[in-house]
């Protein structure tokens, strides 16, 4: 079937899965990390034991400590970091993580099993059109996607509370190990849209 998909696979430098995530964050990486451009760890999804590092700002690429997160928000966007090599998993936007901290008592039942010290983690990729969910509505304590205004409630499993998004943001289980914030397991659920074009 001449869809072109097979032909495309034969041509290199197409998918660009290893060609870098956010350029700003990349620019902040250590020379050692930049030397890892071809490291498949960069595109691998977050795994148990991964650290989490700032995606943007003055501390981009630096490991996030629990105290870096202010209770009640705002959230920060993070890249998972392979703990031994310190390689950021920045090879795919699908690895961007939203972290936000609350009073543990304020978390709903859906969040409690995956939270660590009141910190919850979710995919930062909107389930509607895959924009980065970079907005925060402070008075309602909900995430907001800037592209189509979908809102997600992080205290209740990041379920959709407004807008066209069809489902919640996948949760990323977290743990505290000796005071360090770490990933406890893979994303729960599919990241991004169900299937391009199909809702």
């Amino acid at each position, binding site marked *: 079937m001449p869809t*072109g998909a097979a032909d495309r696979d034969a041509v290199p430098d197409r998918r660009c899965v290893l060609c870098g995530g956010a350029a700003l964050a990349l620019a902040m990486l250590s020379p050692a990390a930049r030397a890892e451009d071809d490291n498949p760890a960069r595109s691998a999804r977050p795994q148990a034991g991964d650290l989490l590092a700032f995606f943007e700002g003055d501390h981009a690429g630096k490991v996030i400590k629990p105290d870096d997160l202010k209770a009640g928000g705002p959230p920060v966007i993070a890249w998972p970091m392979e703990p031994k090599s310190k390689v950021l998993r920045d090879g795919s936007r699908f690895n961007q993580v939203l972290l936000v901290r609350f009073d543990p008592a304020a978390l709903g039942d859906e969040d409690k099993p995956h939270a660590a010290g009141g910190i919850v983690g979710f995919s930062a990729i909107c389930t509607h059109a895959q924009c980065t969910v*970079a907005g925060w509505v402070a008075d309602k304590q909900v995430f907001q996607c*800037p592209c189509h205004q979908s809102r997600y409630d992080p205290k209740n499993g990041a379920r959709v509370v407004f807008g066209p998004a069809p489902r919640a943001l996948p949760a990323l289980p977290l743990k505290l190990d000796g005071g360090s914030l770490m990933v406890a397991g893979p994303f729960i659920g599919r990241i991004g849209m169900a299937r*391009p074009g199909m809702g």
Partner: protein
Amino acid sequence: MGVIGKGVKFAFAASLLGGVFTAPAIAAEVTNYAPVTKQRLENPEPGNWLLYRRTYDGHGFSPLKQINTTNIKNLVPVWTFSTGVIEGHEAPPMVNNGVMFVATPYGQVLALNAKTGDPIWRYKHQLPEDLFQLHPTSRGVALWQDKLFLAATDDHLIAIDAKTGKELWNTKVQDYQKGQYMTLEPLVVNGKVMVGGSGGEFGVRGYVAAFDADTGKELWRTYTVPAPGQPGSETWSGDAWKTGGGSVWITGTYDPKRNIAYWGVGNAAPWPGDQHPGDNLFTSSVIALDPDTGKMVGYHQYHQNDSWDWDEIDSPMLINMSYNGGQPFDALVHPGRDGYLWVLKQMDEGQIGFVYGKPFVGQNAFKSIDAKTGRPTVDPEHKPTTGKDVSFCPSLWGGKDWPAASYSSETQLLYIPANNNMCETLKGKKETLVVGQLWLGADADNAKLLPHDNHIGELQAWDLKTGKQAWMHPFPKSQLFASVLSTAGDLVFVGGTNDRMFHAFDAKTGKLLWEQKTNSGIMGMPVAYEVDGTEYIAIQSGWGVDAQRIQDMLAKTDLKLDPDVPQGGVVWVFAVKHE
């Protein structure tokens, strides 16, 4: 007319089971394909639709007249085809000697038998899984020789074999992970495939680039925002040029006589002008490029220091006209997003002169227009700025967004798909640019549309010779967000309303003559074509993108529109039923 039919060769035999026909995998090919040449693009046959607006001058006019004001009442659907995807289906169905090529959202191209609707092949570009979808659409494939060219949303330009649907080359234009993407139909001039980049909302620096049609090799790239030291750089401050916007996302028009391509350029980024002081050349402008070299030979900036998100992206139509009884001249005509109908004058060396600018919708941002230069004097009370709620008319979607107007050489009227009576409030805010993330510089979440009449959408007809409106048809409780087709049958076709209708009007009087409710809302571009002596009208129905964004915002106003306009793409083809 050598086409398909007998010329269709199925690569896989369809299986016949107990007399039940199992639909074949779409895997046939076109034989006797008519290569698209320079001569054909400059003088296209009446029955084909080979360019974005059929002709290089951008008129969106068909000389076919079998379907006319007398028999339009008998216009009926003759076939439909589901594209299988949702979101905004904006592309014109391109037709070359009985073969239709349809681009859809999510990087798909369909080749269909234009007479029967039977599929010939289907191309699916494999988009990266982590691609964002701010504008999931395609505005069409371009045709040249025996190839098609698709500008995909992952910022790859792809050449496809028109006969087989196989990919021939694939060139990365820029990096989608930095917010760069493409949605436009490329413009091909003499073997050079020109494209522009979207991403003004992500702080990109806009450009037009040309690629070799045979190899995909980049030939030149001209940025719409000058670097320090380049002409126009004095209109920028500091490093603002690096993220200055000026995206290019609608197909250019082309004048073969002067060998000049005209491109509309988007707004400056981020939205509020106080965050990028200066005139900000060449944003919100038309630029004239030599297609051989990319050299900019002229420009006209419609308005300076854009603050309203008014991309002046729609390329000007090339119309030979006179004004107020004067001598005929070669005009560049642009019904602007800023709500003004701009008439400019082509000069032989590429320079662009000003003739007139007149508001075609309620507009309160310009106090006046300089009669000599066309430069607006802006009312600061209605110019969005950082930290302050400002109201302005028309809204950020403008008097007319990207959907194309049409000019009929028969009626000598210009048909504008306008949105009137819709103002907006917006507050600018400082935001740090994070590469690959939306960067508007404004609190879009709390922006409000302010409709102040029962109707917003207007199909307007303008007499360019007098600069006056000839007729107007209002659409109650709906925006009008779709491109217009006019034909020599004295008809004007347009979808664009939230009631899913496809409408046909008398081109001379504006009388509504015919309507058809379709599966979804229409934001596509109608075309007319002919196969075996029969005239057809084709349109994609598939609502989404900014038509839906307006719908969502109008749902929060006193108009209380239902935000749920059904989605899902279908190609519709109509012909007159003989009595």
